[in-house]
Structures are given as structure tokens and as C-alpha cells.
């Protein structure tokens, strides 16, 4: 008896659905793509009044969940836009009045494989009070679980814990391809409990390996090509602020586009070097150009867009420029108040050079 009733109900549903489907076309669903993301379903062949009877469900491990989104009408088609894009590789179904009218798999597509282009600092000897690392990828990476993919091993045997600061949200640049990871500042700052009890995260004289797992995926869902290993040894603490007055400057000849080379005599912070140094002519006009860093971020090269004119130039350095240990032009990362000699803090430092 039960079986007969269910058959009757199905038959009824089918009749109802037939009424919703427009006469000239069978229902079909296509995917609307925007910036390689599956943003919406375009549903054709169903009368536009029926959108209140539609439902899109995620099919996963035998379970079906109706997903959140909104329906709208465009050119007589029904558009279903979920509140976040559909996930590539997953399966969805479209229901009209509880009957499945389409099953859709979101294709994974032909996607590029992300690469880890660089880990900054690029040095193989790093100071004991190293504050941060930058990871530069070829494309936007998945966010939220980055520390799961980064492992630090000491002396080829001990996997270290509590070394990096687990921050949510993580510190990504606007494009999502440069990640900043801090070594736990509580362990670097002298006098704080984590420092006194656990010690600094890195120890002078020891060897370390930083391993980046190939499980790390791009935002498009493609994992890194290979896992990456960076080996380094740890040198002594850096307890001095960078001092631009001690930098060396190699001026280029005039009427060339040769770089002006600044020898920093120590490795400085990659991201800040790229942003805090500007060159001005003697009329205070900023010179447009490109920056290149080499010799483990010890050399700063500025290549102008236009030919150099002869004359006097100034290099303006924002005081927030830091070395690898968080010491900036104005102050040290942790200032010993018993030894302090308060110097004037300023927003900029300036050094000069001439082109003949």
C-alpha cells in the first residue's frame, strides 16, 4: 500500500513539474564563470515564475544539503548565485519542486601549478633574533591554515613547535601571494616569560631546515609542484639599528639607465626595502624606476625609467625600515632601558649622491 502511495506522489510531482517547464525547451543548466570562479548557474527552459520552487543542493558523501544563495531573472533565464562561488570538482543538483532536474559537476579546468618563488631573507646565515620570514608565491594561495604547511627542524632531527606566531587572519598582501610569518615575538623579546622559559626560537650556532609542504594549494585548489627545503645556520643577535650614513653609494654615469647601487653592508627586510626608499632630484621630484635586490638583500639597486641627468640627488629612507631582527632606523626591537641613550626619532633619514 505504501509503495503505491509513493508512486502516486511521484506521478503527481512529475505532472506539477511538467507545468513549470516551458514548452519549447528542455531544462538545462550552464555555469557562469567570472575570474575562473564558478559564480552562478544559468537555468534555462523553466518558466521564470518557478524560481521559488527551485533548490540547489550540494551532493557529498551521500548527503545532500540545500545551499544558500539567491535567484534572479535575466533575459528570461533564472540565475542562481550561491553566496560564495561553487567549488571546483564538487557535484551539485538542481531540484524543481523536490524533483531532480539536473546534476552538475564543476569542472576543475586547466589550472596552473603554483610555485614558491622565494623565501626571504634569502641568506643562509640568519640572526638569532630573526623576527620574520616572507614567502613569495607565483600566485594567490589558500589562506587560513598556512602554519600547517611550514615545518622547522633543528639539527636535522627535532621538529620545533611554538616557533611561529599563529595569527588569524594571517598576514597576506592584498594579492594573496606574499605571506609574512612572525617568529613568536614573546620568545624573542628579552625579559618576557616565553623568552625566559622557552628561550629564543633560534639558537646561535645551530643548523635549521625550513620545509614547505607540497600540500599547500593555490586559491584555485592546485598544490605546489614540489616541497621546498631551505637550510640555514644561526649567527649572533643583531642589536644595532640600520645606519644609512654608513651605506656605500655607487652613482651611475649620466645619460645612462644604469642602476644606482646602495651597499647596505647587512641584509635588511625585503618587503620594507621595496617600499621605504625613494630617490629625489635636486628639485625634489621623485625619480621613477624599479628596485632590484641582490647579495642576500645587502645590495639595493635602483634602475630609473628615464636616463639619469647629472646633478645632486637625495635618497630618502623611511625610518620604519627594519633589519632582519625588527630594529628600525629610530629604535631597537627591544630597547634596554638601563642602557638607553634617547636619540631624536624622525620620520625619514636622507643621504646624498651626485651624478657627473
Amino acid at each position, binding site marked *: 500500500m505504501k509503495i503505491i502511495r509513493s508512486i502516486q506522489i511521484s506521478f503527481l510531482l512529475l505532472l506539477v513539474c511538467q507545468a513549470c517547464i516551458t514548452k519549447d525547451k528542455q531544462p538545462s543548466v550552464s555555469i557562469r564563470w567570472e575570474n575562473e570562479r564558478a559564480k552562478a548557474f544559468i537555468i534555462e527552459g523553466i518558466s521564470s515564475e518557478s524560481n521559488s520552487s527551485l533548490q540547489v543542493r550540494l551532493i557529498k558523501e551521500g548527503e545532500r544539503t540545500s545551499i544558500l544563495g539567491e535567484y534572479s531573472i535575466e533575459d528570461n533565464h533564472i540565475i542562481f548565485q550561491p553566496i560564495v562561488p561553487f567549488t571546483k570538482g564538487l557535484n551539485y543538483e538542481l531540484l524543481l519542486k523536490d524533483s531532480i532536474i539536473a546534476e552538475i559537476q564543476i569542472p576543475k579546468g586547466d589550472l596552473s601549478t603554483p610555485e614558491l618563488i622565494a623565501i626571504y631573507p634569502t641568506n643562509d646565515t640568519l640572526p638569532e633574533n630573526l623576527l620574520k620570514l616572507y614567502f613569495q608565491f607565483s600566485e594567490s594561495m589558500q589562506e587560513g591554515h598556512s602554519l600547517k604547511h611550514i615545518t622547522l627542524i633543528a639539527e636535522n632531527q627535532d621538529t620545533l613547535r611554538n616557533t611561529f606566531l599563529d595569527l588569524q587572519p594571517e598576514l597576506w598582501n592584498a594579492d594573496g601571494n606574499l605571506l609574512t610569518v612572525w617568529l613568536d615575538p614573546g620568545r624573542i623579546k628579552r625579559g618576557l616569560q616565553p623568552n625566559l622559559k622557552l628561550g629564543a626560537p633560534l639558537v646561535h650556532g645551530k643548523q635549521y631546515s625550513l620545509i614547505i609542504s607540497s600540500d599547500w594549494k593555490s586559491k584555485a585548489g592546485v598544490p605546489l609542484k614540489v616541497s621546498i627545503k631551505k637550510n640555514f645556520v644561526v649567527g649572533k643577535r643583531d642589536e644595532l639599528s640600520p645606519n644609512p650614513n654608513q651605506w656605500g653609494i655607487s652613482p651611475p654615469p649620466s645619460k645612462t639607465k644604469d642602476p644606482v647601487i646602495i651597499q647596505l653592508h647587512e641584509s635588511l627586510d625585503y*618587503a620594507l626595502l621595496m617600499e621605504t626608499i625613494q630617490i629625489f632630484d635636486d628639485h625634489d621630484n621623485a625619480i621613477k624606476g624599479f628596485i632590484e635586490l641582490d647579495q642576500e638583500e645587502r645590495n639595493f639597486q635602483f634602475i630609473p625609467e628615464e636616463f639619469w641627468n647629472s646633478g645632486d640627488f637625495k635618497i630618502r629612507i623611511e625610518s620604519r625600515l627594519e633589519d632582519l631582527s625588527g630594529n628600525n632606523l629610530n629604535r631597537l626591537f627591544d630597547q634596554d632601558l638601563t642602557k638607553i641613550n634617547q636619540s631624536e626619532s624622525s620620520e625619514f633619514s636622507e643621504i646624498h649622491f651626485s651624478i657627473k
Partner: protein
Amino acid sequence: MKKVYLFLALVATVALASTSKIASLRDGFMEGTPEVKSISALTFGPDGILFIGDSKSAAVFAIETKDNQKIEKAAAVDIKKIDQRIAALLGTEVQNITIQDIAVNPLSKNIYCAIQLADGTPALLKITGDKFEAVNLKNIKFSSVDLVNAPAEDAKDQRGRPLRGLSISDIGFANGKLMVSGLSNQEFSSTFRIIPFPFTKQQDQSSLEIYHAAHKQYETFSPIRTFTTSEINGKQYLIASYTCTPLVLFPMEDLKPGKHVKGRTVAEMGSGNSPLDMITMKSGKGSFLLMANSSRPVFKVKYESIESFQGSLTTPVEENFATAGVDFVSLPVMNVLQLEKLDESQFLLLQRKSNGDLDLWTGGERYL
């Protein structure tokens, strides 16, 4: 008769005053679709106005939720495997989502939950009882404030990629002002801002230089990770925890633009531990600070102990992993990622259970 007229006149005046007060809260609101690129932190202001901290845009949006029906007591919430539930409703898998923040509307007691997908797409959900719905951000009334003055020529590397990023670690609203703590992806510095609300076009934000002194010997800039506000001894205080663990107090009246402000360290919450979230709760037994930690249980600190702990913490703690300063109680709840006040006597906990499930549940009087 006269009395009646007077009474009516009074009622009319009060009604008028409260209408204009509510209207002035929305000064500068416009109608449209805010360009929210990420939702890192949430907090409610008055009258159902929700503040959204957007790290990717380096901005805070104030949005009209129209969710302002007041109820006194919230129903307790218990949602098992909330991450899996949300992932399915968004049509994706659990590994693709991160719950960034949870805020409770103090009027309606509805729960607002900020989600970020692995591809960076943000989503905002409202939870009423057991029902989840998307919060509409299209064609709404809103205003916004930028947190950084964009450099004249946006900083890019030689391949033209922008390098700068800001991460909003917490936002809060008290005494008509919005407070925002942010971390830079470049320099290690504190970017704590106090922004008057309603927002004005004029940049009237105070950006503070916040320092931390360890045992009166070393002093450093200290980015604030999480904070709350409370009244202690009749004075308003900001209670903040740094990325480097100490719990510090600042009198709100000291937080003035451009000032070098040093917090009074009242406790260090243990080595290898990082405070994640904090709220203030009251019960018949007093007023408490509840603090969620990365590798410790939830701590409960009595504000009375903070009041009586005068002076800064000066002597290092001898015992390994011990904590110092004011006394506190460890509640028998581990792995709590988010805490939020639900109503006067209940609070929400987002907890990773020992079986791996992520549950949202309600704590009440028995913990206070």
C-alpha cells in the same frame, strides 16, 4: 489637565530626542553595496549597526542590519560541527572555510558569523536558533572609514605586485568610539586606532604608539592581538593582550593621539601560549574577564583582583610555564577559539573538541 499636557509634552520631547539621536548615528550613511573584500573581525555598535573589519580593503564598514528588535534573554545555542554545517550550506568542503569571528547583536541576540573561504571569498551568516541565513550586503545603508592613507604611488615590487597588507586583529565599540587593532605584514608595530562614530570624512583617528615594558628593563613596540573594555574602580579601561602574551591595562582617558602609551602589565599568561579572545562578563559574584588561549584552558580573572593588583608586574616568574601577576582560575574548557557575550548571563564558545569537531555552545552561570 495641565499635568496631562505636561506629561504628553515630555513624552513627545523624549521621543523626538531619541529619534534624532538614532538618526545622527547614521550620519554619513549611504545606500548601495559596500565593497567588502574580506571580513576579519565583527562587532556591534548601537541600534543594530554592525561593524565589519575588512583587512583586504584596510577599512571598517558600518552596516545597517535592521536587526534591532530587543530581547532580554537569549535562548542557549548548541550547534555541533558548526564548520561542517556552514561548509555544506555554502556548497563547499570544511577544509575550504575558516570562521574568522563571531559577534552577537546585543539587541536581538542573533549571532553573526564571519567566514573566509580558502580562495579569499568572504561570507557573513546570521544564526537565529538553529537557522542559518546569509546577511544581505547588497543595496543596504552603510558608511565606511579607511584605516591607512594609501601611499601616493602604491608600493609595488619590480614586477608591479603590491606588497603591503594589513591584518585587523580585533575590533570593539565603546563610549561612541570604534577601536581597531591591526598588524602590518611589514613592520613590527602597533596600529591601534580609536575612531569616533559616526565616521566623518576628516581623518580624526588617533593612532597610538603602544609600548610594552618587560620587567622595567626592555621596551618594545607591541601589536595588540585582542582586547575588551571594562570599568575598574569607576574608571574605563582597555584590557589588551599582546602578540607576545602579557595582559595589560590602559586607562581609556590616556589613549590620546600621537601619545607614547605604556600599558600596565597585570599578568603574563604563560609561555608557549597566546591569548586568542577575551570578553567581560558579570554575575552575582562579581565582574570577570574571560580569556581564550591557544594552548591553555579558558582563564577567568576577577576584575577585583585586577583592581587590587596595583603597579606593574616586575619580577620574572620562576617556575616553567607558570603564570604571573593577578590570580586567575582555569575553567575546564580547552581549545576555545572564540568567546562572545550572548546576554547578561550567558556567553558563546567556539571550541575544537577532543574528537576534532568544532562546536558552538553556550556557557552560563556555572562558569561565572
